[in-house]
């Protein structure tokens, strides 16, 4: 009884016996509905038809597998697939079959010739796609001489073809095939096909015309120090660039051919004894499930294999710089490159990569660290600058220094708009200017930027449309956003800046803090290929922090980033070898 009485007293004390008024009930309902509906909304956005298909396909069979290497073919010749059309023994039938498929192309060239008296042969190739000089010099010339020798009449055509390939055509890229389909597709990408009457084997001669532009400094990633070398559109050339700079036998290139219509070559690069095998497997799995017509750019791959397409943050890093790729590979990441795109993708991405540049490592450690810190600061200003301005000027005028408050108040005299509108106007104007300048030819673009900035800044202030302080804030955010080295990261920050401005305009500082919490929550939940996005920051690993906010001297950076769980943890420098034993025992228990 006593306890019951006490409880009633307690409840009366707390006014718990009071039935909540209707507004509390309403808000309570709201407190359930608001998050629930937002959750449903995102759930819906996440599972609409288009993406449902993609998720289904992720669970289905892979669309492509890694290309077999030549070594593996030596040991085990490729199996014939059922639905492939095969070559006939008769040359005429073969040519007919080819002409039936691609005969209406005006650039198909047929070059008939003969060996000796009887043996007819035909060289087929696509005009322009094949290097004619090579064909003339190394195919036609020796073959013509051979036919004039007159030794070939008695031979079985198939053996003859084999001997041709082995003895007579002095070119490195030769392939023997019995498949008609394979011959045609090879022809379309620039190989010449040599058919001999009576043989059901063709020789594919790789004599592709090379369309190469010069290797330039990467234009999207201007550099202060480091190799003035950027990737180009040719995967071969890019592989050459990478091979040229890595002598490690563990450096691996895995090839894929993707795209249902236009087969494109995709390569996966990694260092075998550093990269975590599960990571490589996962990347391979995701790449092999890509199922599209065509891959015009590596951005397609990025969007098709990323973890969370609702995230504003890039989950693969795009770069034109080979040194960045190699640095990534040596940390235990993998790189993906597509033929026809000069942009390599590095995975997995962690938060710190967005604000790092290779120059951090090329310059000495003190300037390198300071510049890195500067970039973190500018990212912060770029994201929160206008929002803080709005919050302090329209909500918390008491939290800023008195002199500043007075001068802010003075400058805002006569401005007809609330700070949010003011900020939005200027920010949108700046974004438009930037976008406009991007598409224009370089000299014009600069002029647009200059004129636009001047006109909008000065005139708007003089017309009392915005306060001068606002112009400073907007200019500051624009400049700081240029200090972010990654274009994708910059775009993310520009988008988020507008959201945080709205938060600040609704709830002031509290709104900004809620936004920060939301953003952190998102980042904390986000994973890039299984690796938490915030990795270097948390979970705390002192080793990874040495290269996070600051870049400690190189001899301190003995171990590769732990977060990537590299197989070979030690960076093989002389100093590292000396200190290796000390760390050895610790490493064992960690992994």
């Amino acid at each position, binding site marked *: 009884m006593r306890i019951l009485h006490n409880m009633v007293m307690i409840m009366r004390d707390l006014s718990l016996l009071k039935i909540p008024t209707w507004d509390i009930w309403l808000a309570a309902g709201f407190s359930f509905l608001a998050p629930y509906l937002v959750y*449903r909304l995102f759930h*819906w956005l996440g599972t609409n038809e288009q993406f449902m298909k993609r998720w289904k396909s992720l669970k289905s069979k892979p669309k492509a597998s890694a290309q077999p290497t030549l070594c593996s073919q030596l040991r085990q010749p490729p199996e014939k697939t059922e639905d492939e059309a095969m070559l006939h023994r008769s040359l005429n039938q073969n040519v007919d079959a080819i002409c039936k498929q691609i005969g209406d192309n005006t650039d198909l060239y047929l070059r008939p010739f003969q060996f000796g008296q009887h043996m007819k042969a035909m060289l087929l190739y696509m005009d322009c796609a094949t290097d004619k000089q090579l064909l003339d010099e190394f195919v036609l010339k020796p073959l013509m001489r051979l036919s004039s020798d007159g030794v070939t009449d008695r031979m079985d055509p198939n053996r003859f073809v084999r001997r041709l390939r082995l003895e007579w055509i002095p070119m490195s890229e030769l392939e023997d095939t019995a498949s008609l389909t394979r011959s045609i597709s090879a022809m379309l990408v620039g190989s010449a096909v040599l058919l001999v009457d009576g043989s059901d084997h063709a020789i594919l001669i790789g004599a592709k015309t090379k369309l190469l532009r010069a290797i330039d400094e990467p234009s999207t990633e201007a550099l202060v120090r480091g190799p003035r070398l950027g990737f180009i559109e040719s995967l071969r050339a890019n592989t050459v660039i990478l091979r040229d700079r890595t002598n490690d036998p563990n450096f691996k290139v895995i090839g894929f051919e993707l795209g249902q219509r236009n087969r494109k070559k995709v390569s996966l690069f990694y260092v075998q004894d550093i990269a975590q095998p599960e990571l490589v497997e996962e990347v391979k799995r995701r790449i092999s499930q890509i199922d599209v017509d065509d891959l015009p750019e590596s951005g397609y791959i990025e969007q098709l294999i990323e973890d969370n397409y609702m995230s504003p943050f890039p989950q693969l890093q795009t770069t034109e710089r080979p040194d960045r790729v190699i640095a990534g590979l040596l940390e235990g990441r993998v790189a993906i490159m597509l033929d026809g795109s000069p942009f390599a993708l590095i995975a997995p991405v962690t938060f710190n990569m967005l604000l790092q540049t290779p120059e951090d490592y090329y310059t000495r450690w003190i300037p390198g660290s300071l510049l890195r810190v500067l970039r973190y600061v500018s990212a912060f200003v770029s994201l929160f600058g206008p929002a803080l301005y709005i919050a302090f000027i329209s909500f918390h005028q008491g939290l800023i220094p008195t002199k500043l408050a007075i001068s802010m*108040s*003075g400058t*805002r005299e006569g401005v007809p708009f609330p700070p949010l509108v003011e900020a939005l106007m200027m920010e949108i104007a700046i974004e438009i200017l930037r976008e406009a300048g991007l598409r224009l030819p370089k000299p014009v673009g600069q002029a647009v930027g200059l004129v636009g900035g001047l006109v909008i800044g000065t005139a708007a202030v003089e017309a009392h449309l915005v306060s001068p302080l606002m112009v400073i804030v907007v200019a500051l955010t624009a400049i700081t956003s240029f200090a972010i080295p990654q274009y994708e990261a910059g775009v993310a920050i520009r988008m988020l800046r507008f959201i945080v401005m709205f938060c600040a*305009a609704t709830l002031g500082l509290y709104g900004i803090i809620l936004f920060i919490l939301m953003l952190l929550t998102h980042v904390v939940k986000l994973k890039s290929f299984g690796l938490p996005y915030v990795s270097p920051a948390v979970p705390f690993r002192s080793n990874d922090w040495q290269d996070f906010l600051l870049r400690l001297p190189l001899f301190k950076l003995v171990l590769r980033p732990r977060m990537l769980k590299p197989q070979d943890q030690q960076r093989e420098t002389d100093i590292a070898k000396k200190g290796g034993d000390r760390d050895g025992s610790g490493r064992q228990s960690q992994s």
Partner: protein
Amino acid sequence: MKPNCKLKLRRHLARWSCLLLASLVLPGCWDARMINQLSITSGVALDQAPPELMTEEGAVGRNNGNLPQNPDRLQVTFEIIIPKIASGMPSGSSTVKPFTNITVTGDTMHELTRRIALETNPIFAEHAKVILISRQLAEKVDLIRLLNMFYRDEGYRESCVIFLTESDAKSVFSVKGNDIPTDTIMSIADNQFRSTRVLPLLTLQKTMEKLTNGTSFVLQSLNVYNGKLMFHSGAVIDGATKRFTGYMGALEMQGLAWLHGKKTGGLVRIPEFEGKPSFVYEVKKMTSRIIPVVNGDQISFRVQIRSRGRISEDWRPLQITENKLDIERLLQDSRRDVEREIRLMTQKTLDLIQRKYQTDIIGCSNELRIHHPQVWAKVKPQWKRIFAEAPITVDVSVDIEDFGLENMQLQKR
């Protein structure tokens, strides 16, 4: 059929959640206020309403009886900054004052603050730096009651500085010149290292702390003299009555600084004594310790004052001597003079506060509380009497370590 249904449901949900998001965002901005629509107040002056206003019935804000009735009506003056002129915008001409004063009369503080809304933009007091209380008011009204509202209201910050004014408090806000009076006050207050007559600032927080603790203290007092603002003296506030008790003279202020021992800077002028002309001792450092001595029922205090400094001005005739002993003697003499002078000043101060005001403004009670908590608990109720009777001995030792730029050794040649 079924997946179709689900799709529809999903679409509905999506539509609802969009609506919800919109409803979340649209009514927002409850608190948004334009900064240029606030009356940024930099100072508040509290006066007793003049007799002609005492009988006037305020149109608004008569006391409803549920608040303690003030025997005296208040007259409050807010100094409101005009940001356009204060921030030096080109449009403002230099002959216009960058502030205006608004004076209202009424019974309670908060009512008065609200009454402003009838005249101009609402008072925005987070930037108030100074609260002035006129002596007249501080004599009659309990300071805790007076400052209560400032302390409670989160609109005022606890970092405002409290001053007492000899003249009307509002007259401080209308001194000559175009500077903002609060700025002038604050910049003079920065000179506390130059003169013993400028006391350490007491913020609202510190003042309330002292008032709730019941300790007596000294407030800086201001005065307007010939239309000019000057720091006047120290005003003793009695911790028991929480009212103004009396002023301290210039010498007593100096003595108080020595007893507190918290200040650096300040000068001691040694007047003519035994026919010797004076010199000036510039304090570099002073410390003081109050040591309570409890002997049975007898409570006494010993004040230990240590100081280092230099002779910064010397009016005595040059003594050309090579004798080391003479220099020693000269130093000894100077030191003795300074010590005697300090002892004299502190004695005067102690006389004043022990005999006349009977308020412990030098913190003896605190020392007693710290060192003899049991004794303190016993004597706390009649502390005023005990303090007035407690013997306080002052023990000064001064170290002259420097003669300024003018080296005595050089003088001798």
